[in-house]
């Protein structure tokens, strides 16, 4: 049984939550963006989490022992397909013929709550790594 592979699981959780936070912050930063390289207003993005096997240097040996568990990974970043929000701003350079500007369909409150969730998830994974690190240290101390 390897305690070291548990560190990889915790790290995978940290990486996934960090990526989620990145996407959420990008959404908030672009809440008023009307121009993108793809054309049109920014569209909010969301991550999809999927449980996965973690790559560990000795994984092949240990996979044989405990088969069902693993870490987490971001399997996909999905783009919100909902229609942009239209605001009447005739003076805006991106206004259409009727004077309406397409703005991203964003919900900063929702993004903030999600961001807090990501932050808590990250902390929980850090705590897991800390606990396992302590167990490894104690195993090493048996030799002292």
């Amino acid at each position, binding site marked *: 049984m390897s305690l070291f592979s*548990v560190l990889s699981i915790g790290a995978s*959780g940290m990486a996934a939550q960090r990526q989620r936070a990145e996407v959420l912050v990008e959404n908030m930063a672009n809440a008023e963006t009307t121009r993108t390289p793809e054309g049109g207003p920014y569209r909010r993005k969301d991550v999809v989490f999927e449980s996965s096997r973690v790559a560990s240097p000795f994984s092949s040996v240990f996979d044989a022992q*405990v088969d069902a568990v693993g870490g987490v990974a971001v399997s996909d970043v999905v783009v919100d397909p909902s229609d942009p929000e239209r605001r009447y701003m005739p003076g805006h350079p991106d206004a259409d013929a009727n004077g309406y500007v397409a703005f991203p369909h964003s919900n900063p409150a929702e993004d903030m709550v999600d961001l807090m969730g990501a932050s808590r*998830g990250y902390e929980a994974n850090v*705590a*897991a790594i800390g606990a396992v690190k302590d167990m490894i240290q104690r195993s090493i*101390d048996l030799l002292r």
Partner: protein
Amino acid sequence: MQYPPAMLDPVAGQLEKYMDLLSARQRLVASNIANADTPGYHALDIDFQGEFQNAVSGPPGIVEVSGLAVKNDGNNVSLDRESRLLAENALRFQVASALLHSEIQNVQSAIKEGSS
């Protein structure tokens, strides 16, 4: 335990098995925490008392935890439960490793006292 360690007390073998089980359980707890936001993921655990009493060698049986509230996305990981288990396992491991350490210290002192 089929192999009482030659130099150590038979208890040491039990302690080793106990620490192995704790490691396996900690792995599942870490996996549950990592997947706390994965849609459709179900929390996993080992039947701890049962496994230890069986004292079987080989990989422990993994079961889904029952009786947890399932969220809208089909995930039933409770971070409170996992945090508690994380701390509990770490403390149990601490106790077991301290006991094993004292067993090893006994043998070491026997070796050292005999040498002079």
